[in-house]
């Protein structure tokens, strides 16, 4: 199949209601229909879009083992990729803060270390300040990359979830595996500083990896905590192509030019210039730091 030169992305900035999976799925279906009708190749929903972010003990009740709702959403997603943040449960009863990509009635498989995987599981679980994700979730082990279909052909995408992009390596790994667009989904609680900090981080992730970053955050407010929205697509030079309003629900569209990104990567070798010695030194520095904690 041909290589896609551009991809139209819909940022579905929804405000999930905590624990109300039925209402949330109805909203997700509605946004998917609207994105599809507008000709989007991908519609991206926030982290924990089916559950809400601060749902605590409710996570146990809303964990997904491929529910009828998820299947219905996959069936609805004809000719469109739905990137969805949800709670996933494995056979052992572990919960994960995960993302799945649905299309044409199926869960799209990602490739990770030569294996096919059904989901991306959040790697960094914030457990400090107001966050307690390690209490509820187990963490994933790596960054799969998805070969996705669009109206023009295929392209490579990856997902990272909130805290994952506060660390530089996840998006780097996705880009090294060939991701052209990184879907950075979030349930990011607002403080006065957070929107500016997050934007700066996402710009850095985009520039340092010569990659498009499509950021989608929850909107609304849960237990008097705002989820600030501010979803945006950032190009490989750090420019914001489209952005959604703060706090309010929105569906905004942007098109990424993958041909231009490929040409840009030819002369901007951020990925090629990554060096084995530096990665090795990173590992050693990490070990040194860990030992210094333990001593």
């Amino acid at each position, binding site marked *: 199949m041909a290589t896609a030169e551009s991809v139209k992305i819909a940022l579905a900035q929804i405000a999930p209601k905590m624990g109300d999976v039925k209402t949330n799925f109805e909203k997700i279906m509605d946004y998917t229909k609207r994105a599809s009708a507008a000709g989007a190749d991908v519609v991206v929903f926030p982290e924990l879009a089916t559950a809400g972010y601060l749902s605590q003990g409710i996570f146990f009740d809303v964990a997904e083992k491929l529910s009828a709702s998820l299947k219905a959403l996959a069936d609805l997603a004809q000719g469109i990729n739905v990137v969805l943040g949800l709670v996933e449960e494995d056979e052992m009863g572990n919960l994960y803060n995960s993302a799945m990509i649905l299309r044409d009635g199926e869960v799209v498989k990602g490739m990770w270390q030569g294996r096919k995987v059904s989901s991306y599981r959040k790697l960094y679980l914030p457990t400090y300040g107001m966050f307690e994700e390690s209490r509820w979730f187990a963490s994933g082990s790596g960054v799969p990359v998805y070969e996705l279909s669009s109206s023009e052909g295929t392209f490579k995408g990856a997902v990272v979830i909130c805290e994952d992009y506060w660390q530089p390596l996840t998006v780097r790994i996705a880009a090294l595996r060939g991701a052209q667009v990184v879907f950075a989904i979030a349930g990011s609680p607002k403080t006065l500083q957070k929107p500016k900090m997050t934007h700066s981080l996402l710009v850095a992730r985009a520039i340092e990896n010569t990659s498009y970053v499509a950021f989608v955050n929850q909107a609304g*407010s849960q237990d008097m905590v705002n989820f600030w929205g501010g979803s945006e697509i950032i190009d490989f030079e750090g420019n914001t192509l489209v952005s959604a309003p703060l706090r309010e629900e929105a569906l905004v569209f942007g098109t990424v030019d993958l041909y231009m990104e490929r040409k840009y990567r030819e002369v901007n070798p951020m990925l090629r210039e990554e060096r084995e010695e530096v990665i090795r030194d990173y590992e050693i520095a990490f070990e040194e730091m860990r030992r210094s904690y333990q001593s």
Partner: protein
Amino acid sequence: MTKEESHADEYPLPPELTFDWKEAHDDIINEIRWHLRNTGAEKIVIGLSGGVDSSLSLYLAVRSVGVENVVAMFLPEAGVTPDYDEEDARAVASLLGIELVVKEISPLVEAFSNEISELRGNSLALANVKARIRMILLYAEANLIGRAQVLGTSDKSELLLGYTTKYGDSGADFLPIGDLYKSQVRYMASKVGLPRRVWMKPPSPQLIKGKSAQSELGLPYEVLDRILYYRVDHRYPEEKIARILSLPVETVNHYCMMIIKSDHKRKAPPIGKVGGATINMDWRMPIE
């Protein structure tokens, strides 16, 4: 014109507490709107005292859900509530275009004092009774109109120092300005155009005649807020805070101890653990 005069319409915020008031204003409005939506409530009941906390809270409530969905209750006590508080409460209500519901609490205070005569000799116990009478009236109104939430007006300074009555003024369904220090509340009140006398007058709970917050707390909020800010927002050790603010270390120790001692006022009562699914320990659920 001096610099001071040029900022005459703005509360002089201590520099440490500088914040993006407009962004915080919009954040709080969003939180109030979604709180009602998420809880299925339609209306807000709020006690307006004429002080800066309740005036700003009322302003934010009205901006959030509209004047038709807010009930503002002025609950004075004859002989204790100063006339200027009533004038200020009326001025704020009039500015916001809201009708003030006025209910005198003196007969209820009198009834309690007649029933429990020892209250007359214990000003603290009586002061708490007054705050709780007001809470009862606000909740009664919320029940009577239905689908209503009681909006509490405590600020971060009062909450941290425990300068509230448990189940009194702190008895509420939600606390929209509870993450703003008193000085920040006064600053935001000045920026949104509330009357100058509301945000410049010395804060007082008006539970005991003539007592201001400063006379009870010992320091003005401009100083208290900086102690709290360095301790809570930055977790500075008390000795360092004393050095920065040129205060005796014992003074800083005193207020930091007030934070610790009042912890119980900010939390749900601890539950004696027996089983493995104890509420709030093991069984943790969101509020909305």
